[in-house]
């Protein structure tokens, strides 16, 4: 079904078109069937189970059908994936749980500031298209370290590449598996850890049996599900508010209304009152932090007094129990109390802030603060773009197309399929904000829609509403909303049936699973192909190499699941850090390797080490979590300020790593011996699709 050597190219494409048309139709029919069953009274939990079981079984089925032990099939899907299908697979490979679930939420919370991710994660493909994809396809091996090893003559650059590929892919895959656990838990009500391992089966059956071949065809299937699931609720919401089913074209007018409402909310006396209460709470926490033991004693006395008063006045039993529970929940020792007061200070101070103006670029209290915001926005865009153009699991996909020509077209398709989602996310954020600002705000608490209670009972960090000023009416400042809820709750906000919520969750699952598949394969291939075959045992047979890769895949997947099950802190930071690492390690060495013949082994090796090293150093000295991990003590604002260069946030550390990487490669290369004639010829070979009129598809046999 997914092709063999005997088929002609057009037969193969026709076959694929037929399979995926039927598949899309089948998915739509499945959703409609569930919708009918829901109307007939099928319980919500069953809808969740049906989506989970159907999609995971489907991915597993594709995995079984495309199982293989052939090296070219296993590593690069036989190099016959047509440009458009590789584009879809790259889209699914690229769009992770963070894009699908987190992106619209980030835009909702930060407005213009969040657009750095939209720009960075799409603009990076221009660099892939102009600098890398066609040349890497012409080179035509199996992995990215392969290119470094061949171009820079030796195992040292290859091994640095292996190390960097694993460093960025592993942190990234942990975040995906974490997302899989979260979505499975929501979809079915299973425990988080069970969810992780249920999702893991879906990932493993697919990539374990068929490697790149299975992953490619599963990713195409996953892309179709995720894009339908993302677009449908937004289109619905747009029709509801504007009457036009193309949200991307008309939400400008909705944004105007949101901006007008913002100005009103900034001055509204009731809003000011609520924000004032949060400010007072934050100030109280600051006071308590000045003398923690005294504050603890005062808290205890106040809580005891309240219990006694209630008892003396024959208060309601429920009130007395609540007061007693509050008394027992007070922090036991000084360290716990200090942590609790610090948390109260930060969270209340954050909620005392006025709402962000959605459309305002680089907000700040004065010109200096605005300049810093702009600088960091641009630095983040830079790191995300270069990182996009350097992530091995994405670049690897361009090895799977039949020719240089199709590699170029394939980048074009990739960005088009990614664009469909990223072009829509800003519209979704604005439409959701409009709904919250105009429909929810100023509603009496008694009349709030039902989904608010449902979501706040799932997880208070996602959504909580408390009548802080006790006026019985909901103010904007009384809503605390987590970014992840925007996409997941859109169907309910728009009043769609539950089956659409189930479909959105299945789309999120598809996004997380497809990215995890690609990443695991990258790690396993770096270890089995580059480390085991190219360095340790060059005489290993093909079957043995594939076997080693499969075993490693299992080990890496279990290790990643184990780390994800610990729920590591700051997982979002780790994902963004992966971009800075990839940018600093790979981008200078790969591009100079193609565009500058003089770049040599020592330049590339030292440049990669220097780029990675400075990026890592900057993060360790400025990022609170990493600082604590390496220095053993918490970072203070003074240390952070002293260690910060040019006001750049730790997330954009690649801003220093990339230029340093380029500089070191150029300087060291010029100081050492030029690469030999064979390397010059390799570079020429890579630069021309064909010097003798023959196709490069023959390199599938390597």
């Amino acid at each position: 079904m997914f092709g063999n050597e005997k088929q002609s190219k057009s037969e193969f494409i026709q076959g694929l078109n037929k399979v995926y048309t039927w598949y899309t139709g089948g998915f739509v029919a499945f959703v409609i069937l569930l919708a009918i069953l829901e109307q007939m009274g099928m319980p919500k939990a069953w809808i969740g189970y049906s989506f989970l079981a159907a999609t995971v079984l489907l991915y597993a089925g594709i995995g079984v059908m495309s199982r293989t032990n052939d090296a070219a099939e296993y590593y690069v899907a036989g190099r016959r994936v047509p440009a458009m299908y590789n584009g879809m697979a790259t889209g699914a490979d690229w769009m992770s749980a963070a894009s699908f679930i987190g992106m619209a939420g980030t835009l909702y919370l930060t407005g213009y500031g969040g657009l750095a991710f939209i720009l960075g994660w799409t603009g990076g493909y221009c660099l892939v298209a102009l600098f890398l994809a066609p040349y890497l396809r012409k080179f035509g091996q199996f992995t990215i370290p392969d290119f470094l090893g061949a171009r820079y003559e030796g195992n040292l650059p290859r091994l640095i590449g292996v190390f960097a590929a694993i460093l960025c892919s592993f942190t990234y895959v942990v975040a995906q598996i974490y997302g899989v656990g979260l979505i499975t838990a929501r979809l079915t009500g299973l425990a988080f850890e069970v969810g992780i391992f249920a999702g893991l089966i879906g990932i493993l059956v697919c990539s374990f049996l068929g490697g790149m071949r299975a992953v490619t065809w599963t990713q195409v299937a996953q892309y179709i599900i995720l894009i339908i699931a993302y677009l449908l609720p937004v289109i619905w919401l747009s029709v509801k508010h504007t009457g036009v089913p193309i949200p991307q074209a008309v939400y400008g007018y909705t944004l105007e209304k949101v901006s007008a409402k913002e100005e009103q909310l900034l001055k509204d006396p009731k809003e000011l009152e609520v924000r004032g209460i949060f400010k007072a709470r934050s100030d109280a926490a600051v006071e308590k932090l000045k003398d923690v033991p005294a504050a603890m004693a005062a808290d205890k006395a106040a809580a005891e007094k309240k219990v006694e008063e209630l008892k003396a006045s024959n208060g309601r039993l429920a009130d007395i129990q609540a007061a007693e529970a509050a008394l027992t929940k007070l922090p036991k020792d000084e360290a716990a109390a200090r942590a609790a007061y610090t948390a109260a200070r930060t969270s209340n101070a954050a909620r005392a802030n006025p709402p962000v103006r959605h459309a305002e670029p680089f907000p700040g209290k004065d010109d200096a603060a605005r300049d810093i915001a702009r600088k960091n926005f641009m630095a983040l865009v830079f790191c995300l773009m270069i990182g996009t153009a350097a992530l091995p699991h994405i670049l690897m996909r361009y090895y799977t197309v039949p020719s240089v020509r199709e590699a170029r077209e394939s980048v074009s398709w990739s960005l088009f399929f990614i664009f469909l989602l990223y072009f829509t996310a800003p519209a979704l954020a604005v439409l959701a904000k409009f709904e919250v600002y105009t429909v929810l705000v100023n509603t009496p608490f008694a009349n709030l829609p039902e989904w608010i209670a449902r979501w706040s009972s799932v997880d208070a960090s996602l959504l909580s509403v408390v009548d802080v000023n006790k006026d019985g009416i909901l103010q904007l400042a009384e809503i605390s909303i987590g970014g992840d809820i925007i996409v997941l709750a859109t169907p309910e906000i728009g009043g769609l049936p539950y089956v659409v919520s189930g479909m959105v969750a299945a789309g999120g699952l598809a996004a997380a699973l497809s990215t995890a598949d690609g990443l695991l394969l990258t790690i396993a291939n770096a270890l089995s192909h580059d480390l085991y075959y190219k360095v340790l045992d060059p005489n290993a047979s093909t079957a043995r190499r594939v076997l080693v890769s499969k075993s490693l895949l299992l080990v890496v997947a279990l290790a990643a699941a184990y780390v994800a099950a610990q729920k590591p802190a700051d997982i979002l930071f780790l994902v963004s850090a992966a971009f800075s690492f990839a940018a600093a390690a790979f981008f200078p060495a790969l591009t100079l390797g193609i565009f500058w013949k003089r770049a040599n082994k020592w330049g590339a090796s030292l440049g990669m080490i220097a780029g990675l090293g400075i990026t890592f150093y900057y993060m360790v000295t400025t990022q609170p979590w990493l600082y604590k991990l390496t220095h053993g003590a918490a970072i203070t604002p003074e240390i952070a300020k002293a260690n910060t260069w040019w006001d750049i946030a730790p997330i954009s550390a690649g801003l220093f790593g990339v230029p340093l990487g380029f500089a070191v490669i150029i300087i060291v290369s010029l100081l050492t011996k030029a690469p030999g004639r064979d390397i010059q010829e390799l570079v020429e070979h890579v630069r021309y699709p064909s010097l003798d009129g023959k196709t490069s598809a023959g390199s599938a046999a390597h």
Partner: protein
Amino acid sequence: MQLSARHQEYWSKNLRITAFLLGIWFFVTFVLVYFARDITFNFFGWPFSFWVAAQGALVVYCLIIWYYAHYMNKLDIEYGVSEGEE
């Protein structure tokens, strides 16, 4: 294999188009964003700078990549360096 003058010309044309498209990419991404606070005229409801970062730049990126693929695939044939059909 020794490169002919035609080959050299092909490569320099490739470099030229790459630099040109990279210039557009840089302008849309960094120049327009740098001046985002100043270009805020109303564009079908959006402040222009918001629209550029949320929608406009993405369209330009798609066009850059599409045009590069189109141009280079034609150039390959013109200079006889295209791969033969299978």
